[in-house]
């Protein structure tokens, strides 16, 4: 093993970890406030990626300029599902919400397949010249992914710490009943939580498609490492989700030094199970 290989995999790990982190922040926020694991989150990523594709092919935009369309599409879908389906189930057991989100995941995937078909697609065909830093190779898309994630994580941090809506989200995640008697309009905050979670998922979906390619199951296949990231960091803790995403991403890439890349999901699964056994509250002490 050469140092250069190691560093190259580390870079790839941080890139795929960034995508996981953006998805896991939303999963973690939604779990913190609504108390269920949102299984359709990966498919919201897919929705975002394909909405960007529509803007790229329909309007001739470069993919970065198509990101607002991805966000808009995923947010409309997420808030729509919440208000028509999940909202009616809020007073029931969380497991019912979980199962219904599983159903929504399948429905979203099916709709995407009906509209865009099942073949692989890319935003932009042809070869892009990579950057070389020493022995490390970096695609232009990777630079966008790293910079975009850094920007969004900083924005999420400022939002949660400095704005009154962000603080209300943290308050609701701490104690929903107290938030209600404090006068916080819970339903309004829930809608904004979906806006934020779906917006980040959409960007994650576009980044994933830039890194690989578009396919109706692309987001669904990310659910396992995303849940692993959210659990690793401490479910309900957005900062933990960022940390967890990066660790899972790097662990998956580095594992290919010894294992076949086909085992990447198994690595994420193993970390998740290990964490649930030794420290179920996660690295940053979320909920069990």
């Amino acid at each position, binding site marked *: 093993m050469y140092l250069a290989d190691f560093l190259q995999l580390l870079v790839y790990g941080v890139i795929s970890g960034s995508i996981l982190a953006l998805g896991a922040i939303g999963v973690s926020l939604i779990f913190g406030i609504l108390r269920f694991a949102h299984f359709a989150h990966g498919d919201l990523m897919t929705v975002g990626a394909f909405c960007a594709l529509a803007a790229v092919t329909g309007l001739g935009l470069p993919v970065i300029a198509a990101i607002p369309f991805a966000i808009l599409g995923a947010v409309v879908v997420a808030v729509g599902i919440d208000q028509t389906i999940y909202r009616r189930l809020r007073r029931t057991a969380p497991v019912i919400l979980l199962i219904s989100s599983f159903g929504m995941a399948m429905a979203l995937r099916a709709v995407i397949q009906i509209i865009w078909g099942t073949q692989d697609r890319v935003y932009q065909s042809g070869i892009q010249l990579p950057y070389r830093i020493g022995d490390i190779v970096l695609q232009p898309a990777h630079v966008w992914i790293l910079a975009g994630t850094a920007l969004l994580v900083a924005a999420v941090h400022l939002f949660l710490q400095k704005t*009154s809506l962000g603080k209300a989200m943290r308050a609701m995640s*701490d*104690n929903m009943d*107290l*938030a209600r008697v*404090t*006068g*916080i309009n819970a339903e309004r905050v829930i809608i904004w939580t979906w806006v934020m979670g779906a917006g980040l998922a959409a960007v994650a979906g576009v980044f994933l498609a830039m890194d690989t390619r578009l396919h109706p199951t692309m987001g669904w296949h990310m659910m396992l490492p995303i849940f692993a990231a959210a659990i690793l960091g401490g479910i309900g803790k957005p900062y933990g989700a960022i940390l967890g995403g990066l660790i899972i991403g790097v662990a998956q890439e580095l594992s290919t030094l010894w294992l076949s890349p086909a085992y990447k999901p198994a690595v994420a699964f193993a970390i998740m199970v290990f964490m649930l056994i030794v420290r179920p509250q996660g690295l940053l002490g979320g909920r069990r």
Partner: protein
Amino acid sequence: MTIPAGSLLALDNVYGGYGGVDILRGVTMTVQPGEIVVIIGPNGAGKSTSMKAAFGLVNVREGRVAFEGRDITNWRADRLVKLGMGFVPQEHNVFPSLTVQENLEMGAYLNPKGMRARMDKIFGIFPRLAERRRQAAGLMSGGERQMVAMGRALMAEPRMLLLDEPTAGLSPLFIEQTFERVVEINKLGIGILMVEQNAKQALAIAHRGYVLAMGENRFEDTGPNLLANREVAELFLGG
């Protein structure tokens, strides 16, 4: 009975509880503007339940609740906060991962204008909170948490404050301090309805008190009279 005119809060023959079982079986009480009113009684008497019924947290099946003459029966909590009522639950009454200052800010969520001035006023009542403003509320002692919880409720500028056992689990020193703060808050013109286990101390600062038993009114009198009442003393004040 009809709701008496001029009352701040009134419960009129309230029946209700959790699920299908009535815990309250005809509870009637009023709080006049500027009053401290204490609810005492044995465990399971429906003290906290009465208070929660007033704040829309328990389903009122029959009877009425009114605030300043307006019917608020079974209203949602955020509407009541907007109307001028504040509620401090007994347990889990702070946001543990938020700082003291953020907890107070949440109290002003509906009405953030002039928040700084209000916060300074609350730091005047609870100087300890000013010292600890950047600390996570979950890391504070029970007594300090009670201060955060009261401060949070006061940030909404209520005209009426409901306190559910504010001294539960506190050391004697903190119990005394908490009652002093309650009197101080009351002097700002805020009516107070309080459920208390430390009945003697609570009645000593109260204008009036209600004794509940089995979800019904048993006695109702001024604080000093209830303290002097032999039957109340034997049954509910521990001799």
